[in-house]
């Protein structure tokens, strides 16, 4: 095949990686013993990591082409094929997914005590679908994985979630479905325009006329904006993240919402560059609103988990801001920030889950003095608080710095507003830390007749260690990760900026200005 590097390893590594968790699902179906189920689930998530590991070592960092490509006919009569491959953007997400899946199994060891089998089936099915999204090079394949994620996630939230779980689950499902089906229509339109093919690489090579780009961009935007989620379609996120069980929140925050941004990178930018330029300004404005609004709302939260959920809105605003800055720093920062957010917010949800197991309350007001009660916990929480704020030396700093740099390059005021967002972020996170860990311990947890809480146990520490390592690894030596994406990102940026679109940068604003003037007259 042209323009791709076929898989040279002795086994179809991507297919194995994606479908190994699915085999795990089938194995689990026949197991009865709960302990055995947990271990099997852990075994399969770790085995997936081992199987996928050669991807890292054999990856060629000097090319933007798709690598490890596998190709099989699937629906020949419609010209649809099974084609998978990865490039410098997807490889990082694959490992993020795999690692977070392992942690999800670990963190649910004690937290999930009913319907254990179904829960682990859900987690493994999720892992398969998420990995599938990142490796698919055929639109139908991509769409099937993209939608298939909804089923296990719906069940995960709805069955093992908090009090308001059913509402949250249905809201999550319907919001995402609306976006996705519009994308489906867009995909079919592409199919016929591109000469009856759904090959993503082939379709990316075509120059589409502007009107078509305009509508297709909107159709895809519907799917990706809901998933990210961008303001104003973010309202499913606080409910879903808050009500989901810890593992569900981690998957949602860590991987699922990255898929929206991944969609922008993989589809919207290379396929509809003109429309991308056209919609750039309103999208940047929405990102800035998300940053500031998400941060402000955090100050008003009484619920521990909900606060972190809203902080995701703010952080994902940074990510999209970086992407839509459309320069190397911005996009790389955006991608890195996605990883960071996966690590940090994933970790914060894990930490909330750990303490919730002990206290069974999510109200911040019920906490206080936990630095004394759970010193280890307090220390680890501090690491992630600082990473979330973006303290130099942690991963958050690198990502946010690159994004603000990129935004500044695009227009100064964007950088300034984004920087205000960082200050707000420091505000709500430190305030949260103060309320939970300092002050005097609540009488529930100390003193006679109290319900004592205990510090983190070995399994819990083990769960957190990899994430702590990532915080500092990315923070101190980001090139280890940026190296993977440099070439791919540069190629992408070139493609977007080489458009024949004559309107220049800020077409949308002019359009609106004209419109207003017309109405005025």
């Amino acid at each position, binding site marked *: 095949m042209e323009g791709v590097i076929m898989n040279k390893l002795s086994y179809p590594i991507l297919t194995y990686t994606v479908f190994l968790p699915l085999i795990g699902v089938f194995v689990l179906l026949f197991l009865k013993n709960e302990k055995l189920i947990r271990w099997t689930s852990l075994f399969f998530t770790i085995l997936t990591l081992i199987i996928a590991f050669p991807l890292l070592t054999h990856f060629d960092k000097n090319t933007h082409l798709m690598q490890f490509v596998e190709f099989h006919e699937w629906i020949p*009569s419609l010209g649809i094929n099974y084609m998978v491959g990865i490039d410098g953007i997807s490889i990082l997400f694959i490992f993020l997914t795999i690692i977070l899946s392992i942690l999800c199994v670990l963190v649910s060891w004690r937290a999930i005590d009913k319907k254990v089998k*179904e829960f682990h089936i859900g987690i493994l099915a999720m892992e398969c679908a998420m990995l599938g999204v990142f490796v698919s090079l055929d639109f139908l394949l991509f769409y*099937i994985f993209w939608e298939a994620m909804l089923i296990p996630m719906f069940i995960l939230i709805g069955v093992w979630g908090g009090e308001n*779980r059913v509402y949250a689950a249905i809201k999550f*499902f319907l919001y995402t479905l609306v976006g996705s089906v519009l994308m489906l*229509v867009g995909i079919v339109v592409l199919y016929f325009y591109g000469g009856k093919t759904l090959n993503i690489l082939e379709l990316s090579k075509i120059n589409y006329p502007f009107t078509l780009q305009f509508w297709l961009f909107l159709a895809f935007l519907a799917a990706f904006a809901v998933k990210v989620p961008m303001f104003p379609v973010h309202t499913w996120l606080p409910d879903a993240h808050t009500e989901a069980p810890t593992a569900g929140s981690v998957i949602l925050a860590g991987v699922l919402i990255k898929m929206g941004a991944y969609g922008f990178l993989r589809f919207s930018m290379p396929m509809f560059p003109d429309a991308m330029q056209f919609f750039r300004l309103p999208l940047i404005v929405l990102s800035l609103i998300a940053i500031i609004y998400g941060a402000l709302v955090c100050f008003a939260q009484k619920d521990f988990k909900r606060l972190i959920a809203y902080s995701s809105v703010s952080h994902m605003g940074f990510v999209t801001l970086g992407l839509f800055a459309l320069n190397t720093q911005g996009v790389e920062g955006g991608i890195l920030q996605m990883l960071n957010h996966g690590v940090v917010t994933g970790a914060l949800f894990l930490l909330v889950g750990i303490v919730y197991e002990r206290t069974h309350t999510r109200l911040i007001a019920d906490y206080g003095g936990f630095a004394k009660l759970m010193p280890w916990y307090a220390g680890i929480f501090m690491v992630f608080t600082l990473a979330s704020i973006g303290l130099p030396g942690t991963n958050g700093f690198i990502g946010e710095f690159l994004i603000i740099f990129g935004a500044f390059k695009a227009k100064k005021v964007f950088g300034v507003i984004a920087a205000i967002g960082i200050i707000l972020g420091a505000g709500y996170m430190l305030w949260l830390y103060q309320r939970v860990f300092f002050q005097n311990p609540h009488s529930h947890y100390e003193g006679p007749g109290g319900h004592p809480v205990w510090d983190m146990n070995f399994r819990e520490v083990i769960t957190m260690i990899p994430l702590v390592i990532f915080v500092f690894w990315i923070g101190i030596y980001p090139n280890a990760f940026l190296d993977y994406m440099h070439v791919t990102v540069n190629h992408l940026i070139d493609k977007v900026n080489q458009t024949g679109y004559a309107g220049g940068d800020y077409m949308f604003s002019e359009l609106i200005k004209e419109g207003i003037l017309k109405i005025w007259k």
Partner: protein
Amino acid sequence: MEVSINIGIRDISAFMPEIILFVTGLLLMLLDLIIKRKEILGFVAIAGTVVAIYSTYKLSAYNDPISAFGGMFLLDGYSNLFKVIFYINIILTIFISLRYMKIEGASYGEYYALLVLATTGMMIMASAGDLIILYLGLELMALSTYILAGLLRRQFRSNEAALKYFFLGAFSSAFLLFGIALTYGLTGATDLNAIAEAIKTLNIANNPILYLALVFIIVAFGFKIAIAPFHMWAPDVYEGAPTSVTAFMSVGPKAAGFAVLGRVLFYAFQDVQIDWAGVLVPLSILTMAVGSIIALAQRNIKRMLAYSSIAHAGYMLLGIIARSSEGLAATVNYLLIYTFMNIGAFAIVIALRREGFQGEDLEDYMGLSKNYPLASALMLIFMFSLTGIPPTAGFIAKFYIFMAAINAGYVYLAIIAVIFSVISAFFYLRVVMYMYMREPVKEVILSSPPSMSIALAITSLTILVLGVFPSLLLNIVRASIL
């Protein structure tokens, strides 16, 4: 007009599957007199169907379409595919009704005979090359289903269903006859090809009377496939009829209606200048809207599935509207997949039924997953498939039909359709939600005799396999129709 009455062996052999089924039907009525255990009759019916399948299989070996009885009876890939749908429909229906009819206290031999006769009628409809034959098939099917709907004669709502279905069905038959009469008056023919010929030669392609005839015919079949605004009978009849009959009716007559609609519109009225696709567009939108939105308010699962089946008719229309053989293939593909997922869903409804317990309220599904994880998982598959979520076959069905619609330039229609499919997601999800996310309030005992388990296994596996390997079905459908 000269009528040829030279009936050769070739004509008879083309008609063989129908003859076999018809004889099976008569045989069942006779056996009913001697055999006390009526389940045996069910197996006789299945045996007869299997023989008919074999005969169809033999006939499909001829590559060229067969036109028997002077063009009155057509045997081609198109009709054979529909016959496959009818075969699957009747076999699965019998599987799920063996125990059910006993519980309902309606274990009559006629039941199986009528199922077989109704299926014969549908098959004749699918093969009809002449409006008269078409009408014959239609009446055979309709009369049988009227009785089937009212089989629970001690139940008030079953009587109501039968009566309602009969009255409205009679109306629709009248519409059809009116349409046929007008067509005959204009073209002097009842043969579909002759009609098409006459429209061309007599140059009446834009004759308003012909439009009227066309509209009458669309109305008549719109009634059979339950598209809005001719759907009024469906919810009441579906709710009142025995559940197994509901499953049978929600697939069989609908498929037969589509078979005829496709045949008549594509063959006879291909050249009519009025864009019949344009006539169907508002009907399709209305159907999807009525089906999806009213289903939201239903608390009875049979009624909900009735509205869902109305909504699905709306999606299937998209293939006809596309006015291409690709579109027709998409509709047939949809119908085939719909057969499996719909009968599967009804099978679960039936499994909940037991002596003194209806098992039709949504509340009855609360917490089902606690005691019956497997049955709940199957229902989950059916519900997600009906919604059209991958990796189930329901998604492939929708995907292919949207492709046909978009290829024909109906992008806006595809957008409307996907939006309604999101709305419909809500009520399918609600079933899943009740099963998995609520605590049980009633004691529900699920019974699944072997025949039912077989039906459930067939339907659920087919849905999953076709969802992942759609080529298996698509190749057959495309080869038969394109």
